[in-house]
């Protein structure tokens, strides 16, 4: 197993993971530890703030708060990493703006001075998937895989902010058909199934879920139909907000669009580090895949048992 040095990151949690899906956070911590990466706490971190909501109302406010969050990691001298597409969108877009617009940087620093902070621009905001794919690399990850789930059929959902806008993302301008997440999924022996409109939004983004839940559920319904038609066993995503929409959204779609759906949806939704952790041989309890007492009544809303049943044979 090749050694990777200097995998140190400030862990930016965001809102949805700690509040609704603690298993996502737990699995990221477990997998990073397993891979020899160190995660530092960012004390005093606030909302990222959400790109669809805050930025839509007042860009300077959005930018200053985002810059403040970045300075927390700057103080520690490490890159900031997040497991949420929304947080990634905000932190990376803000970082990009501040790196390219000296005027904005000046404005931001005038405001940050009031709370005794300064944005320097010494670090880069990264996504958990970006760290896995680029900082560590597929070959590095390969060395950790213990179990292969050869008959698992996966619908990969990327979400939007992780690939767009493409000029501010690290995927070499690729925005139509990226494959980085599929490549990570296929490391586990699972097969990434090509389904119709794979890159369609989960339905939640851009404050649609907050404002018009039925519309969001309609998006999810269509997405889920395509996933079911393609015969996928589970959905793999890399964003807690997509996770919420694809998980809780199944129940919402099942009730709002009962007549259109027929058989209700029950597709397990699994976060990428949960799947990866299992393949690495990490205890499913630590990955939040087995519900313990503390999490009773908390999501996931769609049981993940069918998924566990499917991979059980390879695990034992």
């Amino acid at each position, binding site marked *: 197993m090749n050694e990777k040095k200097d995998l140190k990151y400030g862990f930016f949690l965001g809102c949805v993971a700690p509040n609704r899906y603690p298993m996502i956070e737990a699995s990221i911590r477990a997998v990073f530890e397993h891979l020899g990466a160190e995660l530092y706490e960012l004390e005093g971190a606030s909302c990222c703030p959400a790109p669809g909501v805050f930025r839509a109302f007042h860009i300077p406010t959005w930018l200053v708060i985002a810059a403040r969050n970045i300075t927390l990691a700057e103080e520690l001298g490490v890159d900031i990493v997040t497991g949420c597409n929304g947080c990634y969108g905000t932190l990376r877009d803000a970082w990009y703006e501040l790196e390219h617009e000296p005027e904005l940087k000046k404005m931001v620093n005038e405001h940050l001075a009031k709370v005794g902070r300064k944005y320097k621009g010494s670090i880069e905001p990264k996504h958990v998937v970006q760290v896995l794919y680029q900082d560590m690399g597929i070959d590095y990850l390969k060395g950790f895989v213990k179990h292969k789930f050869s008959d698992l059929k996966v619908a990969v959902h990327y979400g939007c902010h992780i690939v767009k806008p493409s000029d501010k993302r690290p995927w070499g301008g690729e925005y*139509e058909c990226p494959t980085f997440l599929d490549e990570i999924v296929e490391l586990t022996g699972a097969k990434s199934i090509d389904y*119709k409109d794979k890159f369609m939004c989960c339905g939640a983004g851009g404050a649609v879920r907050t404002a018009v839940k039925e519309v969001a559920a309609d998006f999810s319904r269509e997405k889920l139909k395509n996933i079911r038609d393609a015969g996928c066993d589970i959905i793999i995503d890399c964003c807690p907000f997509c996770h919420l929409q694809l998980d809780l959204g199944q129940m919402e779609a099942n009730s709002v669009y009962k007549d259109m759906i027929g058989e209700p949806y029950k597709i397990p939704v699994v976060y990428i580090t949960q799947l990866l952790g299992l393949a690495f041989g990490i205890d499913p309890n630590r990955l939040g895949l087995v519900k313990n007492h503390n999490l009773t009544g908390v999501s996931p809303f769609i049981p993940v048992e069918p998924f566990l049943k499917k991979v059980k044979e390879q695990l034992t």
Partner: protein
Amino acid sequence: MTETEKQIKVTGKERPKIGVYVCHCGINIAGVVDVYKLKDYALSLPDVVLAREYKFMCSDNGQSLIKDDIEAGLINRVVVAACSPRMHEPTFRITCKEAGLNPFLFEQANIREHATWVNMNDSEGAYEIAQDHIRMAVAKARMLLPLEVQRVSVEPSCLIIGAGIAGMNSALDLAKEGYKVYLVEKTPTIGGHMAQLDKTFPTMDCSACIITPRMVDVAREKNIELLTYSEVVDVAGYVGNFEVTIKKKPHYVDQEACTGCGACVESCPVSVGNEFELGMAPRKAIYIPFPQAVPGQYTIDMENCIQCGICARPDVCEPDAIRYDDKPEFLKVKVGTIIIATGWDPYDPTPLKQYGYGRYPNVITAFQMERLLSSYGPVLGKPVRPSDLKAPHSIAFLQCVGSRNFREGGNNYCSRVCCMYATKQARQYKEKHPESDVYIFYMDIRAFGRGYEEFYESAAENYGINYIRGRIAEVSEDKDHNIIIRAEDTLMQTPIEVKVEMFILSVGLEAVANAADIASLLSVQRSADGFFMEAHPKLRPVDTLTDGIFIAGVAQGPKDIPDTVAQAKGAASSAAVLMSQGEVEIEPYYSVVLDHLCSGCRSCQSLCPFGAIDFDEFRKVAIVNPALCKGCGTCVSACPSGAMVQNHFADFQLNSMINVAIKQSSVENGGK
């Protein structure tokens, strides 16, 4: 004696008497700044003896103002404050010459582009800048020296790079006028892309039927030396006297011995995609590109040949023409002029993944469709779709693939031919399969040429082709490899979904892949879009900024066939003008060595990009060959002892401008 007076004593017979002429340029200049005040300002400058303003200095009347003043002996230097010297410097130089003044005692101050145009809304600022320019021009004018133009002879021969429809037309015209033409083509056959087309819009002429006779004419013409499967590897020299090195790539077949029987092709075990059929049909490693190729010579493609030796066996090649050890040959020729007719490459739509090219078998480019439609193509003119080789019942075209695209992976410009070729192909398909559904998704239909609008109208009216305004967002594939198109019909303002059995991308034209290499080989410029740049977009469309080098056809930008042929004939005519004159004037801006200062360090010799500097071993000084020197000034700035002087841009001339540019010169009254 001041430094400047000394200079005048040394170089001129009499003290400068400068006339300054301020042009109104209609309201281009006079509408922004006060030209009368500028005229008075000019009079306050040293050695200015008279100043005038006039509505258009470039007009006959304007020019005769200058002429009269020179002829009356009032002035012996001329400054015109007007537009860019790119426009009218030649005009005023001729004026001076006609009045008996050395044309290099003229200087132009550009107060239009540099002052009034860019500061249209700031008349005070513009006035200040105009003053600066006039002051600098006058300062230089005081230092000007008379120069003599040089004349060099022009070799009556032309190198044409590229033997498509453009290169062939230029070559034929020049050859018939009696000039020797070297026609260089990198592929084994002449004909270019036009030979691949089935029919041409809007007249539906059979492309092969009109181009093959031309190809034969080219091959038959005595004055044309056809160099196929060859590339230009080096160009030295200058207008009228280019020395060109051409590499003839090895065919690995002795063309003298080969009888063209084709037995080798039958026995060759290696099959690869045929470039001429855009990969839709195979060819062998030993091949001729297509049956009507000119010259009909066999070539071994050594990248794919496994050298099994079958074709060389005496029972296969009876005349024993196979030469596995064939080597490239290098040919040196001297030409007076060069025409670039390198054509284009089709845009590769693979990066536009939303359109599925390269991912779905039934997505093809329009150039592949052209081969499918061609009566001598891989399916003999009965198009089938790649997945099951059946004729599709419905097809759709998407326009502007890789063109008019301001996002990543595309070109900004319009490729000009795609609207019409898609319309043409749609009509052809409809003629073969009247029951089929044919869609064309477009942004705008640009039917600009003669007969094009009628052609398009008829396609929509009489052929029932469905034109849908709106770009396609993405396509996907169903289980039977049909293509599901998702688009917005922007006229009906509604999203639509259409399923078709084959999807054709109307890809645009791009500059050839090695355009950058050609540009540096010939020292010509390219525009931002990658095509070769003409000297002036309106008035010199076939010239480049390098004297003696011309452009023809799509090498300069996307064009249809009639425009390409017209431009090719234009380029031939421009080249012929130079060659028929027999000699050409070269501006005397070359560098001169001051022998007594030259230390013989040879720094200049190693830096000169044009190889214009020789070294006199006996006197140990550098010598400049004026005909080769392009006046770039590299040697002047490199010379550690100040022994290099560039005519018309000498240090003392430029310093005089800089001195007055950075400070207001003390107002000496130069004889007001």
